[in-house]
C-alpha cells in the first residue's frame, strides 16, 4: 500500500495467460426502450488484468460494467464471468455476485449499519462465515484501507473519501476474484481522491482482476494493463495506456483526450 500516484513507473503486470479469461463479453447489445446503449461490445479480461474504461458521459461505460454482475440485463450476446455464463440461471448469478465485488460512484453504504456491520453482513449471510471470523476479516480490510478506528461509527459520520474506502473494504470482505469500479472518485473532493486511488493501486499491486471506469488518467497510466475507450455504446479503441494516450488513432479519442486534458 505504499504506492503513490505520482510515480511514473507502471506497476508490474500480473496477467495470467494460462488461466481462462476472468470476464468475456461477446457482441453484447443492450437497449433502453428504443435507445441502443451497448452496440456489439466485445471485451476479454484476463485473470489478474487491470482494465480502465473511459469515454464521454453517456457512452455506456456504467451500463457495460453493470451488465457484468447483472445489475442491468443485456439483451443480446454472451457474458461469461469466471466460467459462469450469465443467463437466466439463478445459481450462476449467485455464483457470479459472490465472486465479483463492486464499488459505486455514490458509495451506497448501508446508513443504518455500522461500518463493521456493513463489512460483515455479506460474509456472514452469503458466505456463511462465523461472525467472529467475519469481524476479523473486516478489521483486516479496514486496516488495509487505513480506517480501522472508525469501525463502530455509522457511515454518516465519515468523510466521503473514508466512506468510499469502507465501500472498497466491504466489497473485499467477500474475497472477490474480480472488482468492478464505477467512477469511484467522481463524487469526491480533490483532496480525498488520492486516498481512494492509493487504495486501488494497492489492490492492483496485489494482482486483483479489475475493471475500472474512471477519468483519472494518472491512475490509468500507473495501473492499467489496458485502456478501453468507449463512445456511443461502442468500444472504439483499446490498448496499453501509453500507446493509447500518446497515439490515439481515432478522431473520437483525440477529441475526448483533448477535452479531458483541458479539464485538468
Amino acid at each position, binding site marked *: 500500500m505504499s504506492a503513490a500516484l505520482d510515480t511514473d513507473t507502471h506497476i508490474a503486470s500480473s496477467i495470467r495467460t494460462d488461466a481462462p479469461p476472468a470476464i468475456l463479453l461477446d457482441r453484447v447489445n443492450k437497449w433502453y426502450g428504443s435507445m441502443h446503449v451497448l452496440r456489439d461490445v466485445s471485451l476479454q479480461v484476463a485473470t489478474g488484468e487491470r482494465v480502465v474504461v473511459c469515454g464521454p458521459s453517456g457512452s455506456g461505460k456504467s451500463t457495460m460494467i453493470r451488465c457484468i*454482475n*447483472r*445489475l442491468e440485463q443485456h439483451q443480446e450476446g454472451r457474458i461469461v464471468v469466471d466460467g459462469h455464463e450469465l443467463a437466466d440461471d439463478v445459481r450462476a448469478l*449467485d455464483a457470479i*455476485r*459472490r465472486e*465479483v*465485488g*463492486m464499488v*459505486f460512484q*455514490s458509495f*451506497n*453504504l*448501508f*446508513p*443504518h449499519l455500522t461500518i463493521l456491520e456493513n463489512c460483515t*453482513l*455479506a460474509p456472514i*449471510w*452469503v458466505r456463511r462465515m462465523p461472525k467472529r471470523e467475519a469481524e476479523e476479516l473486516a478489521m483486516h480490510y479496514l486496516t488495509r484501507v487505513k480506517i480501522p478506528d472508525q469501525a463502530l461509527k*455509522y*457511515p*454518516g*459520520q465519515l468523510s466521503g473519501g473514508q466512506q468510499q474506502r469502507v465501500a472498497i473494504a*466491504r*466489497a473485499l470482505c*467477500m474475497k472477490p476474484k474480480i472488482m468492478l469500479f464505477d467512477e469511484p472518485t467522481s463524487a469526491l473532493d480533490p483532496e480525498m481522491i488520492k486516498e481512494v486511488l492509493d487504495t486501488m493501486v494497492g489492490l492492483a499491486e496485489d494482482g486483483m482482476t479489475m475493471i475500472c471506469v474512471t477519468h483519472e488518467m494518472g491512475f490509468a497510466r500507473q495501473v492499467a494493463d489496458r485502456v478501453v475507450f468507449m463512445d456511443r455504446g461502442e468500444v472504439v479503441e483499446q490498448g496499453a495506456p501509453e500507446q493509447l494516450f500518446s497515439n490515439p488513432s481515432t478522431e473520437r479519442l483525440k477529441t475526448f483526450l483533448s477535452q479531458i486534458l483541458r479539464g485538468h
Partner: protein
Amino acid sequence: MSDIPLNTSVAGVPEAAAPRQPPALTTGPAAWLRANLFSSWLNTAMTLVLAYFIVRYAISFVDWAFVNAIWSVPNNQTAACRALKTSPNPGACWAVITEKHRFILFGTYPYEEHWRPAVVCVLFTALYVVSAMRRFWRWELAVVWAVTLVAIGILMWGGVFGLSYVPQERWGGLPITLILATFGLAFAFPLAILVALGRRSSMPAIRVLCIAYVELIRGVPLISLLFMASVMFPLFLPEGINIDKLLRAQVAVILFAGAYLAEVVRGGLQALPKGQYEAAEALGLSYWQKTGFIILPQALRLVIPPLVNTFIGFFKDTSLVLIIGIFDLLTAGKTAVVEPAWQGFGVEVYIAISVIYFVYCFAMSRYSQNLEAELNRHRVR
C-alpha cells in the same frame, strides 16, 4: 466551574473579551411572551381576546366537571342529577360512570366474572408496554406474545381450569376493542409488508394481485366490509359451518388495515435510493436477505410517523363494529345510557370513553416520537 481559575491572558495575545450577559429580554419567559404574544398591537389584541374566551370557558368547564358535579347517587335515584342539568349552575353527573363503569368496560360479560376481562385488559396493556421496550426486542418476545394471547383466550372463553364457559356473544367493552386492535395490527402489519413488497415484485401475477387487493379494499368503506363479513360471508359457507361473528369482523378489520398500511410501507420502499438495492444485490444477498437486512429496516424507519398515524386511526375505527352488533367499548357506552334512569347522561359517558381512547392513542403517539428519534440517531452526524 467557578473554582477553576480562568487565565486567558497569554503574553502577546490580547485578553479575550469578558463574557457578557445576553441583551435584556431576548431569553426567558418574558421575552418569549413578548415575541410570540405581544409583538404588535394586533397580536396583543388577539392574545387578549383569546385569553378572555379561554379563561371563561375553562372556568365554566371546571365548574361543570368538578365543582358542581355529582359523583354518586343512591340506587339509581337520578333525580338530583336531572335537577343539576337544568339548574343555572349545571354540573356533570359522574354518578353514571360510578354506577355503570363495569358495564361500559366489560359489556354483558357475566358480572361475577368481571375480573377475567379486567385481567385481560391488564395483560394486553402489559404486552404493549413490554413490546415497546427495545431491550426486549428478541425472538423470545414472540413466545411471550403467544403465551399471553393463549392466556387471554382462556380467560375470555373459560371452560377449562374451573373457569366457567362464557360464549363470545357475551363479551364486550374494552377487551373487544383491544382484541380487535391488537390482532388487527399484529396480522395487518406483516400482511401490509408482503403486499407492499408484492406491488414492487418483478412477477406480474403477484403485482396485479397486490394492486387489486389494495385498490378493492381501499375503494369500499370499512362499514360495508364489516357488513359483508357479517351478512354475506356466511351465505357462502357450507351448511353447518359457522365461523363466529367476532372472527369474521376481525378478518374484515385485518384486510382493511392491511391495505392502508401497505400503501404507507410502499411509500417507504419508494423513498429508498436505488443504490441501496443495487449495493445489496452486488454483494450477493438474496432477495429476502436484501429485504430483511437492508430495505425494510430503512424503509420502515422512514415511515414511522404515517405508520403510527394509520395505527391510531385504525384503533379508533374498530368502534365501527357496533353496526354489526359487536359490543366494543363505544357500543357498551351507548348501551349503558339506554336504561331509562340514566337516559340523557351520554355526554359524561362519551367523555369517559374518550379519555380511555385518548390514553391509548396518546401513548402510541408519544412512543412513536421516541422510537423515531432513537432509530434515526444514525442520521445525525
